[in-house]
């Protein structure tokens, strides 16, 4: 509960000043409201003090109630009411407003900045609760004091109720709105718009509420309030609604404007309904708009955050890619240098083996000329031929092998270093050329090579792509099964931005255990079947990956192998270039 006894020692200067200020403001607001009184002194269309009091209770807490009580008492006592009646009314007003503030805080979970539609509806509920208590208590006190006749109870209650409720609905949003945001940061066109809005409002209100009663054009204010609600915030909308209501009450009180004719009760009822609509409608719209703006901002922030993360991620990937590329370059450079440095001693090994061979020949010739005893001659020849000659043959064979390995490494590193051209490659034509260049090996193997009638075009380097197919076809030719006629099929298809090709054979196949190492350098799985250093597939992988594609093999031992290769597709590109660099027509014609 909001009991001041909860903090009895905290009645500081600040608290006393706040409470005192509230009583003064309440009193002033009451006098201001009474200046709009219609007929009887207590009957006002709007009772602004209730709005002031509710805001004070919401912003400073219920403990400022003594200020409220004092202000209410003073306001009523100075209207010439008996002290008892004034006291009763003051107590009732205080209790009603404290209950309303309690309902707002605890039931509605009211946001003092009127941020949500729920707060506008809550304020309406608070106004109804407060007005019901204060009106009932007020009429009871007036009746007890014999100030109003029993016939007027109903009418006075109704007017009291409406006035207090309107006081809260009209005044509280203005005060809460400006308390939440006090800046006047309108610049340029925005400032001009504010001036235009308020100027139109002033002229409009003057014409509508100071005009003759038969001019029933009060609804003309709504475009203005909608303008304000759409373009400005809650505080401006609440202010405009309050100004319109004030002008309406002022005009009516002075017998002018659309609410100036007819029976008092009817006029009052129409005026109250008009004011209620004038404040609740635009205020709801305004709050809904700011809720929407906040949602949009949140969405934008989420979007920005997502974009930021995506760009962070992209940057990280790009960095990783660059790092990988430079690592790759380092490795290529290393391979290149090592292969070259290894060549120097190899030149010696080979060269001096040759020198030894020459000397060996000379020595053999000299020995034949020399007349040695037959048994010595035989022994020396055996040493020369089997001993030295055999050793020389091994040295020569090994250095040759060494040389081939180094050449293969150099070859591979060159494939990693060569600059590729990015052009539209007619892969069909490239494969045709490749197959033609392998004609002799194909004929020797007795295999049939069939190329699909059309192969998709790709984006890349024609020479390198030709090398890929050459290696794959040669590979297939090397590993055919003896006794089975070899069949090698080459096909392809485009799916989206990827051109997919395959080279399928019915050869010996590759065991599952060997598949993972298939594309590594110096891997040979059937060394007895074919010459080579095991570089062909490593080069295929290198070339394809440098094109941004992928290569994989599908195989079962004894059931043939299919190599799948992907390259960036060049679909929809005109003016195709084939392997020889001459323009061609669409190969799919």
């Amino acid at each position: 509960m909001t009991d001041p006894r909860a903090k009895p020692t905290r009645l500081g200067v600040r608290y006393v000043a706040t409470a005192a200020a509230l009583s003064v403001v309440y009193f002033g607001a009451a006098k201001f409201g009474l200046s709009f009184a219609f007929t009887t002194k207590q009957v006002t269309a709007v009772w602004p003090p209730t709005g002031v009091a509710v805001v004070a209770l919401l912003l400073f807490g219920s403990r400022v109630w003594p200020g409220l009580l004092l202000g209410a008492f003073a306001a009523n006592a100075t209207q010439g009411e008996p002290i008892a009646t004034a006291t009763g009314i003051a107590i009732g007003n205080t209790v009603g407003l404290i209950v309303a503030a309690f309902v707002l805080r605890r039931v509605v979970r009211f946001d003092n900045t009127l941020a949500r539609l729920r707060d506008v509806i809550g304020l309406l509920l608070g106004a109804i609760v407060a007005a019901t208590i204060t009106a009932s208590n007020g009429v009871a006190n007036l009746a007890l004091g014999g100030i109003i006749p029993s016939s007027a109870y109903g009418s006075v209650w109704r007017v009291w109720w409406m006035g207090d409720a309107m006081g809260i609905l009209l005044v509280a949003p203005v005060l809460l709105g400006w308390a939440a945001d006090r800046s006047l940061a309108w610049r340029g066109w925005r400032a001009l718009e504010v001036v235009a809005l308020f100027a139109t409002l002033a002229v409009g209100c003057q014409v509508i509420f100071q005009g003759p009663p038969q001019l029933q054009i009060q609804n003309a204010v709504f475009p203005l309030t909608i303008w304000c609600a759409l373009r400005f915030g809650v505080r401006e909308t609440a202010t405009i609604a309050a100004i319109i209501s004030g002008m309406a009450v002022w005009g009516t009180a002075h017998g002018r404007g659309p609410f100036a004719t007819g029976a008092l009760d009817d006029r009052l009822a129409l005026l109250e309904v008009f004011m209620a609509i004038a404040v609740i409608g635009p205020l709801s719209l305004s709050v809904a708009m700011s809720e929407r703006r906040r949602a949009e901002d949140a969405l934008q922030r989420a979007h920005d955050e997502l974009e930021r993360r995506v760009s962070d991620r992209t940057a990280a990937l790009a960095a990783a890619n660059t790092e990988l590329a430079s690592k790759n370059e380092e490795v290529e450079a290393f391979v290149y240098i090592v292969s070259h440095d290894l060549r120097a001693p190899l030149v010696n090994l080979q060269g001096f083996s040759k020198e030894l061979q020459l000397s060996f020949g000379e020595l053999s010739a000299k020995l034949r000329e020399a007349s040695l005893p037959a048994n010595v001659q035989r022994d020396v020849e055996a040493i020369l031929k089997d001993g030295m000659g055999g050793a020389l043959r091994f040295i020569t064979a090994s250095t040759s092998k060494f040389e081939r390995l180094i050449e293969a490494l150099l070859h591979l590193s060159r494939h990693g270093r060569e600059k590729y051209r990015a052009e539209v490659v007619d892969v069909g034509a490239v494969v045709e050329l490749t197959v033609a260049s392998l004609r002799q090996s194909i004929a020797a193997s007795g295999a049939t090579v069939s190329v699909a009638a059309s192969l998709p075009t790709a984006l890349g380097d024609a020479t390198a792509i030709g090398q890929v197919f050459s290696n794959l076809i040669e590979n297939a030719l090397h590993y055919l099964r003896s006794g089975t006629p070899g069949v090698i099929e080459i096909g392809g298809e485009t799916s989206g931005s990827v051109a997919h090709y395959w080279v399928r054979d019915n050869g010996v196949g590759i065991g599952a255990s060997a598949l993972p190492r298939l594309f590594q350098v110096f891997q040979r799985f059937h060394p007895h079947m074919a010459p080579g250093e095991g570089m062909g597939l490593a080069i295929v992988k290198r070339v394809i990956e440098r094109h941004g594609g992928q290569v994989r093999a599908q195989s079962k031992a004894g059931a043939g192998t299919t190599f799948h290769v992907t390259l960036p597709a060049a679909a929809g590109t005109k003016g195709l270039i084939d392997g020889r660099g001459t323009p061609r027509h669409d190969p799919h014609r």
Partner: protein
Amino acid sequence: MAEEHRVTILIVDDDEGHTELVRRNLRRTGISNPIASVDNGSDALDYVFCHGVYANRPGNGELLILLDLRMPGGHDGVEVLRQIKVDPKAKSIPVIVLTTTDDPREINHCYELGCNVYITKPIEPSAFIEAIQRVGLMMSVMRMPTDPARLP
């Protein structure tokens, strides 16, 4: 033909084996010119410009240089080539680059600096001998215009 007028062949190579192989194969192809060798770049420059230990080297005759590119120390083959080819007197000396590197960029660089012939050292012995024989042939061709007096 007087001995002092014969072209001296200077082999610049840090690999003794290569130098020996080149020497033997040149002799085998019938080249009988004097052959000198150094195993680093600064000695090569000293030899060419008659500096240092080569200040009083014998023979003021013409030179032909067989130059390896990859040599340790501050003066690699490229630097030797550059210094020879910017010198007004020395730049007419024919330089045959004989090296293991077949990098096209390096080859281009050497030709830009003014090397006369670039030969990659083949590993295969017969190819190596063939290359050296080509060098010998070239030498006999290159020698002639430098000494018009001995033309028949």
